[in-house]
């Protein structure tokens, strides 16, 4: 389990949640690198950076409600990325929504491997890693 991911990317606008998620992930020692990006737009820019080389596997925790580009818009744009990048990335939606249509939309998206309700905990991460 140690260092399962080259990098974990948090797409999240709430600073408190960034803090919590960073801490929970940090305690589990599943990656050396945690990056947080405040919106879907910033995340796309980050993933599109030509200098960035995608080795190994990446995990994204994606919030739904964010200013500018929200989680679902990000997913639409994510689909347009080159296969060699997409192949390396797993996306988990992490949100406090209880709108069942959000859940359906999330699961219907082929890039999304799991939807987890906030807050992020060790058990929830373990569930993703083991399945």
């Amino acid at each position, binding site marked *: 389990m140690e260092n399962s991911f080259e990098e974990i990317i948090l797409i999240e606008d*709430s600073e*408190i*949640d960034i803090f*919590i*998620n960073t*801490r*929970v992930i940090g*305690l589990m020692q599943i990656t050396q690198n945690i990056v947080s990006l405040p919106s879907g737009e910033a995340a796309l820019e980050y993933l599109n950076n030509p200098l960035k080389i995608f080795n190994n596997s990446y995990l994204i925790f994606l919030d739904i*409600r964010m200013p500018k580009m929200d989680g679902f818009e990000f997913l639409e744009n994510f689909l347009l990325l080159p296969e060699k990048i997409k192949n390396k990335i797993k996306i988990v939606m992490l949100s*406090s*929504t*209880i*709108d*069942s249509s959000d859940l359906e939309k999330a699961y219907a998206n082929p890039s999304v491997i799991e939807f987890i*309700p*906030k*807050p*992020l*905990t060790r058990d929830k991460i373990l569930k993703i890693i083991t399945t």
Partner: protein
Amino acid sequence: MKQGLLCLIHIGENRRLHLEAEALREELEEDVNTIWLNAPQLYIHDFGEIVPFIICVISDSKIEWQNEVNHIKSKFPNFVIGIFSDDISSIQAYATGCQFVLNPTDKLDCQYLWQIVTSKHLNHENQLLENQRLEKSLAEIQSKNKELEKINFELDRFVYSASHDLRSPLTSVLGLLYLLRTQLIDAESIKYTNLMEESILKLDNTIKDIVTYSRNNRTDIIREKVKVKSLLKDLVDNLKYLEPSGTSLNEAIVFKGINILNIDKNRLQTILNNLISNSIRYRQTSRQLKIQIKTEITENKVILHIEDNGIGIKEQHIDRIFDMFYRTNDSSTGSGLGLYIVKETINKLGGSIQVNSTINEGTTFIVSLPLAQS
């Protein structure tokens, strides 16, 4: 004291008389109970036990209405006090000066009176007017409907936005508490964080209940094939926080019956979620929790049984458990909305719910829902 009903009947289409009579009615209404029969436009109310014993007939002097007026007069001679054609003020003088005494020996057949008043008015001319009026009100209803749809849509968005904005700080606090607990070692502090978590979950549940309630009210019924077993599994996962120590919810909840139902998934989830979480909350701690869920299909119904071995519900509460905010004990952790939402949801689906409970033995809810026509 003035009692009883003063029944004013305006017959005819004289605009001026109509307006004057209307004004008189408003004035009189402060002192006496008036029923205003402005044929053919007004409806007669169910008088119930109250008998209108004085009738003032206000009429055009036109001959065509006279027969009708006379008819009423001959039919109810003890009730009609007078026919006033152009002199509205005399009614007022009469009505305000008179001491009403209720208890007439004759009973006035209101329905019959109404028939006389209305039937003769529905001549061709009036029918045209009536049609025009209906068309106008149809257009009004349609535009009102449109407006309501828009309000509904906006309210829906508002509920979701508000619930999200209310919930996200709560989930942040839950996350922080979770982190805090990973660092705490003394029992006292752990106890505090547990209590904090409990309070936040309670608030969170209230928000969820409100959202569920508003969603049930405003969304259409969507039937689909639902696997009850897997729905129960998801549900149990979400109820983990209620799991009593030393009990496995997966083992405590036993399902038997028809697994695949053609039903509104969200609403079935709402019903089961609320009933099962109640069974967990109000369990009998001295014995192992057991919740049996059974589904069956009869000729035209889906029947759900949810049976627990909990503390039971006292007979004095049974009639009120489905009321909004009704809680049977002070220490209950629920929002007081759960069973109300269950009932509302079942109502929306056109079904019914029944409850049998024995103190210290357990409670069984029997939900009956109409089968889809397919």
